Each structure stands twice: as structure tokens, then as C-alpha cells.
């Protein structure tokens, strides 16, 4: 057994980099399917293969209460956090973004109950190239003060 492990370790110079590439690229395919990762990202070599690039994705955020639904202006200094969240919109990443946006929106004048985040991408009609929005993910978070 030890000899076998030794031989595997000694031959690592032949298989380890390729094994890493295959593992990451296979995981990227899984994340695109299960977690809406943009095909361009994640090390799966899907760049220049799909219109669903991080640049085509965008986020809308709304704060809500019983009477009002207002879109939140996304601060410029959160650009990278937004880009990360739209490229790979995991529940954890969206929740962190929602908390931060809710904090920025909170004031003494209006009481907000929820914040809704929508991640969109753009689809294009083959032939006419008409763009249309495609909702990638939508999440709502309770932000009512306790």
C-alpha cells in the first residue's frame, strides 16, 4: 500500500495539474446548473460560449412594506459585491447583500418590512436579436424591525 502511495505521489507531476483542471471545470458545470453561476466564470472554460456573461447580468433591489414598493439605488461602492452576487447568486451572497442594502435604506421616516433582490440576465431572440429579460433568481428577506 505504501509503495502504491509512493508511486502515485511520484507520478503527481504528470496528473495533478490536469486533475485540478478537470475537478474545477466539472464543478463549474455543476454550479452553472445548480447555482446559476455565469458560464463565463468559475474556471470551466465557458467564456465566449454564451451570452449569459457577468456583464449581461444585473440586479434590482426593492424595499417593501404593506403600501409601498420602492427600488433601491445600488451604491457605486458596492459594485464589486453586486457583480459577485449576480455572477454567482448563492443564497448566502444575496442575503449578505440584502442586509447591507437594507441597512443603507433604513431611516426613521418609513418602516420597511422586506427587501427583494432580483438577479436578471438578458436573452436574445435568434434571428431578430430582440433582447428580453430572464429572471435568474429572486429572493425576499424580512427586514422588519423587531
Amino acid at each position, binding site marked *: 500500500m505504501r509503495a502504491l502511495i509512493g508511486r502515485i505521489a511520484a507520478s*503527481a*507531476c*504528470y496528473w*495533478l*495539474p*490536469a486533475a*485540478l*483542471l*478537470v475537478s*474545477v*471545470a466539472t464543478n463549474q*458545470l455543476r*454550479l*452553472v446548473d445548480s447555482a446559476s*453561476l*455565469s*458560464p*463565463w*466564470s*468559475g*474556471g*470551466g*472554460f*465557458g*467564456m*465566449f*460560449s*454564451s*451570452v449569459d456573461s*457577468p456583464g*449581461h447580468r*444585473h440586479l*434590482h433591489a426593492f424595499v417593501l412594506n404593506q403600501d409601498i414598493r420602492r427600488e433601491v439605488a445600488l451604491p457605486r461602492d458596492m459594485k*464589486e459585491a453586486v*457583480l*459577485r452576487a449576480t*455572477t*454567482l447568486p448563492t443564497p448566502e451572497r444575496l442575503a449578505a447583500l440584502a442586509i447591507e442594502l437594507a441597512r443603507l435604506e433604513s431611516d426613521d421616516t418609513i418602516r420597511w418590512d422586506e427587501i427583494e433582490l*432580483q438577479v*436578471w440576465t438578458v*436573452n*436574445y*431572440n*435568434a434571428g*431578430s*436579436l*430582440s*433582447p*428580453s*429579460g430572464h*429572471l435568474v433568481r429572486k429572493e425576499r428577506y424580512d427586514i422588519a424591525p423587531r
Partner: protein
Amino acid sequence: MRLAERLPLFGPRHAGPLAIDLALRLTLLDLLLRPVGSWAIRPFVLGLAAAALLRPRWLHQPLLWLALAVLAGTRVALDWPLADNHAYLLSYWCLAAALALMAKDADRPLAFNGRLLVGLVFLFACVWKFVVSDNYLDGTFFQVTLLTDPRFEGFSRVAGGLDAQTYQALSEFVGQHRDAGPPPDNSGIVLPPRFEFLALAATGWNLFINAALALAFLWPGGRAVDPVRHALLLIYCAITYAIATVDGFGWLLLAMGAAQCGVEQRRTRLAYVAVFILIIFYREVPWADSVFLPLLAGPVDY
């Protein structure tokens, strides 16, 4: 010849020290010309790459390459999931260099890894283009990209025969931001046949060259397939990076290709250097925007 010797892993031919040196130097040049990572990582990458280029003894130090692999990998982890695909490839390649330089005959594992990594990159690119993507095979991807990606504007207008007004009208139509509601009215929008042909040609060419590269580099044959591999990779880099300005990726692929040159393949090594320099020119001289567009469109239109 025994079966084992026919497999690339046990291939009888050594790439030779010249090929290793060239491959490693081209990789270091890639790191210097297109440094990776944020301010926290970049100085270390630049420092190590410059030191290894200036001190030949350091070029073969496995620890240096391991450090570069760790730095490149750290960059990928810190930027997750935003890092470009070649950032991943760079870390695998630096790791391959480190492991190869620890081995007895460094040229053989380095050449093997170069070949396998290039083959796998294009295999996964084919999986995406042929199987997974639902807007590549019909040409939609290139039609949209040629109109929305500012890096392709010069090429789209020169090769697609679009004057400034047509390009702007199409670009604005495709770039409309409509999340809900009906799609925008496209009655006034007509794609010029030459532009449609360009998008289809780009799609067909990329499907062909990606599949050919994957097949050639993963094909288990040795010497007989070598010239095909080199020719395909050199042609791919010379054409692709004239249009898609992802120079870091191109330089990295060339370094991997150079690692597979045999001792006697002096001309092939020179060809890798020539295409590497060509990509530097592509970066510094935006030929489509600065040279052809003014000639074709005239100063007012431009």
C-alpha cells in the same frame, strides 16, 4: 515499440532543455506583461517573475514556481467567482512547472502537462460551445457579442461592413435593458447580410478550431501528430488574439505549446516566439480601430 512507450506519459522523446527554458521564460514574460491579482499579490508575482528572468539559475527553482502557483491560486480564491479562466490555467501551469522541475527529467512532465492542459482547455470549451450553451451554435452569441462588446467594435465594423450609424443603431437595439414586458419593436432593425455571415463564420471557425485543438492535443499519438498540434495552436493564437484581446491567455497557451518542442524543432520554437511577439503588437496596435477603420470609414465617419 511497446504499448507503454506509445502512450504520451512514457513517450521516448524528450522535449529538451531549450524547450523548457523557452516555455518557462514565455510564462514569466506573460506574468510581467499581464500581471495578475490585486495590489496585495501583484508585487510578489512581478518580483518573482522579474527575478527569475534576470537570474537564469532561479528559472529552474521549483520553489519559485510553487510560489507563483500559490500566488495565482490565491488570486483565484480571493476573486472568486470573478477571476478569468486563464487565471485558473496559470495556477495549474505554474504548479506543473514546479512539479516538473522537482522530477528527474523536467522536460518530459512539463511537455506532457502542457499538452494535456491545452487539450483539456479546448475540450471543456467544446463542451460549452457544442453541448451546454443554447445560443452558440445558431450564431446568436457572436451576433450579440460583436454588437455589445466594445472590444469587438472595430472588428465588427471593418469585417462586418457596418458604418458608424448602423453599428450604433444595432448596438443600441441589442443593448436595450428590458427585464419585463414585451420585447422591443424590431421592425426597423435589419442585420446586414455581411454581418450575419461574419457572425456565422466566426461561429464555424471557433467550433472547428476548438474541436481540432482538443482532438490534436488529447490524441495519444506522438511524433506524427506533433506538427499538427503546433500548427493548430500557432494559427489559433495568431488569429484569435488579433480580434479577442485576451492576450494573457494567448501567451499562456503559447508557453504550453513551446514546452512540447523537440530539441531539433528550432523553427517551431522560433514560431512560438514570433506569435508571442505578434500578440504584443496586437495589444499595442489596435489594428482594427486605429488602422483599418479610419481607412475604410473616412475621418468624418470615424
